[in-house]
């Protein structure tokens, strides 16, 4: 299957990185960057649209992964899981918004952030109660289990799929938010809810819809990341910090910022792992600190007051 011939090579430590090495790692960085974008776009959307920092974002990602595992157990179809899981998580998001977040809208952002923080504890233990603590996984779809040779670098075909899928989601979201009537309605509803309500836009339903959509996106990323990472009760907390940093670096609420931010961090982390092994854990924070010193509101964020 893999046509990569065994090549005699000098030990890696004492030779200059050859071009194909750099290209291979850049490809890894791109794949990881796009995955980071998928992980964080739901968070950006909910903040951008509703001014809510959804700290329970990681929990919806985890729920998506577990929903994917369940659908796969029942139907053996990855593609079905890719469709059903986000919808299921979206429904959960809608219920949470209706029951818990709606009473807090008049009380301001602090209470909403704190509520989502409480949900983290709730969801993690709920998942463990329902699915148990065992580590589970989502197998890649049959046709994407081989590895592909791209200009001399071997890359799993599933990662190529993630790159294509992620960029497609980015374009689709950009079109939805910027170009469609629905996007305009949502932006109007959020920008000035009293005015929009006055014009007959059902504000409550818009807010529930946007929150459910954001949660669904997080659930989608849970299924997409399934074949690469694994599903365990701890993964919600693990991805929260990288997702938050991508969103802060890109600029809170900016879709473009989320994409650019995740691509930068994807490359920086991969570069760190490949050539600065000791500092790999620090790369994401170094990038963040650097950008926030220069632009506190992030690359494309709305300027602060």
């Amino acid at each position, binding site marked *: 299957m893999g046509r*990569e011939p065994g*090549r005699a090579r000098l030990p*890696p430590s004492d030779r200059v990185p050859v071009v194909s090495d750099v290209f291979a790692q850049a490809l890894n960085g791109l794949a990881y960057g796009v995955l980071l974008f998928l992980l964080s776009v739901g968070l950006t959307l909910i903040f951008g649209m509703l001014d809510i920092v959804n700290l329970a974002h990681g929990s919806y990602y985890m729920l998506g992964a577990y929903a994917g595992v369940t659908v796969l157990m029942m139907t053996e179809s990855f593609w079905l899981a890719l469709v059903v899981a986000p919808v299921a998580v979206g429904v959960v998001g809608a219920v949470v918004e209706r029951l818990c977040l709606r009473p807090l809208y008049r009380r301001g952002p602090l209470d909403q952030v704190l509520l989502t923080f409480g949900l983290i504890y709730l969801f993690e233990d709920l998942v463990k109660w329902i699915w148990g*603590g*065992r580590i589970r*996984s989502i197998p890649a779809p049959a046709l994407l289990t081989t590895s592909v040779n791209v200009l001399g670098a071997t890359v799993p075909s599933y990662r190529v799929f993630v790159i294509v899928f992620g960029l497609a989601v980015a374009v689709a979201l950009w079109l939805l938010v910027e170009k469609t009537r629905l996007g305009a309605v949502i932006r109007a509803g959020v920008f000035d809810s009293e005015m929009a309500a006055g014009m007959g836009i059902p504000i409550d339903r818009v807010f529930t819809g946007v929150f459910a959509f954001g949660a669904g996106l997080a659930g989608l990323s849970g299924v997409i990341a399934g074949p690469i990472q694994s599903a365990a009760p701890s993964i919600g907390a693990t991805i929260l910090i990288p997702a938050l940093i991508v969103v802060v670096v890109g600029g809170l609420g900016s879709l473009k910022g989320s994409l650019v931010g995740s691509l930068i961090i994807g490359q920086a982390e991969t570069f760190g792992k*490949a050539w600065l092994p000791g500092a790999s854990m620090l790369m994401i924070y170094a990038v963040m600190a650097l950008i926030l010193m220069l632009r506190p509101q992030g690359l494309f964020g709305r300027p602060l007051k």
Partner: protein
Amino acid sequence: MKAVTRRTFLGGAAATAVGVAGGPWVLRAHAQSGPLKVGLVLPYTGAYAVLGESITQGMELVFARENWTVAGRKIEMIKEDDEMKPPVGIRKTEKLIDSDKVDILTGPVHSGILLGMRDKVHASKTILIVSNAGADDISRAKCSKWIFRTSFSNWQPNWPMGPWVAKHVSKEVFVTAPNYQAGKDQLGAFKESFLASGGRVIGEDYPKLGETDYAPYLTKIKQSGAKAVYAFFSGTDAVGFVRQFDEFGLKQSVKLTGAGFLVEPDVLPAQGKAALGIISGHFYTPLLDNPTNVRFVKDFREKFGGKMPDGFACQGYDTAESIVRAVKATNGNTQDKEKLVAVLEKTEFESPRGQFRFDPKTHNVIQPYIYVREVKEVAGGLNNVPIDKVADVKDPGTGCTLPA
């Protein structure tokens, strides 16, 4: 939501808090006299809860066989969740020692908790039987007369694999493990014996603990041209590494070997076919054909709904077995700690892993065998099939004087 009026909600919360706060001390106070109290400091929440449960089940199997009594004393197991967090683990240890006054303490999983509680256990002369954490120090510089270990020292599963890999797999190996103490201990033991057998380490990498994207490391391994990799990963790291190793098509040109934890039953199902062919060294595999193990596997699966026992369950089994035999030998007397230690030192029995003995010099288990196993498709699905073994693996115990 308005149905839940504020008064009733707050009233309810206050009542439960008072009830809960009063509860435990009342219960513990009057049950001082007879039972043999065994404390368990293990993770019951979070990612490592699966290990905590396996170890506990292994112990329950033995105690149930003795229908929860030994030398006339009722066995009482007190389980405490350490959440894999050193401060919580230490607090729970102090509760078990000071408040519950347990006769024998067991656990933990996390080496950080073990190192954190070592001084308290030593100072209070409480007998601790380590049922998992593999920190080498506990059988070396930080050993103690009162601390025994039935699981392993990080050194034991890896040291025998050095010569075996050099001889049977390749002399050019790339080594990798997470960037934390246990990772360095395990690779250190392997490198020590591998280099001594004429092997050459042609690459070394330490991804961060909890890494989710191993692509950069796997690309480096491919580019290094190594014929084999020796790796130590556990939990979600092990699942991620093994699956991505396969995804990157490395399995064709590079043989993956490692410490047993890389493919133990807590991670093997999630790894699936990606784990096929992986060679690992460990003191146990459910497929061992000795009679004790055959009965252990049968009883375990019967009692726990067909769940296959793993190395952690075997550690639980041996911990409970040591306790039962020692307390029988002192016919129920656990006050005389010196006598209990003397008896424990001489404890010997047939364990699922083979003939179980403690090393009198370090109180660390002498592994009857470290089995070399390969992941194959067998009747019950994927499992670690033993293909070779190295006998009597004793931790060097450098710097251990068993201080009292």
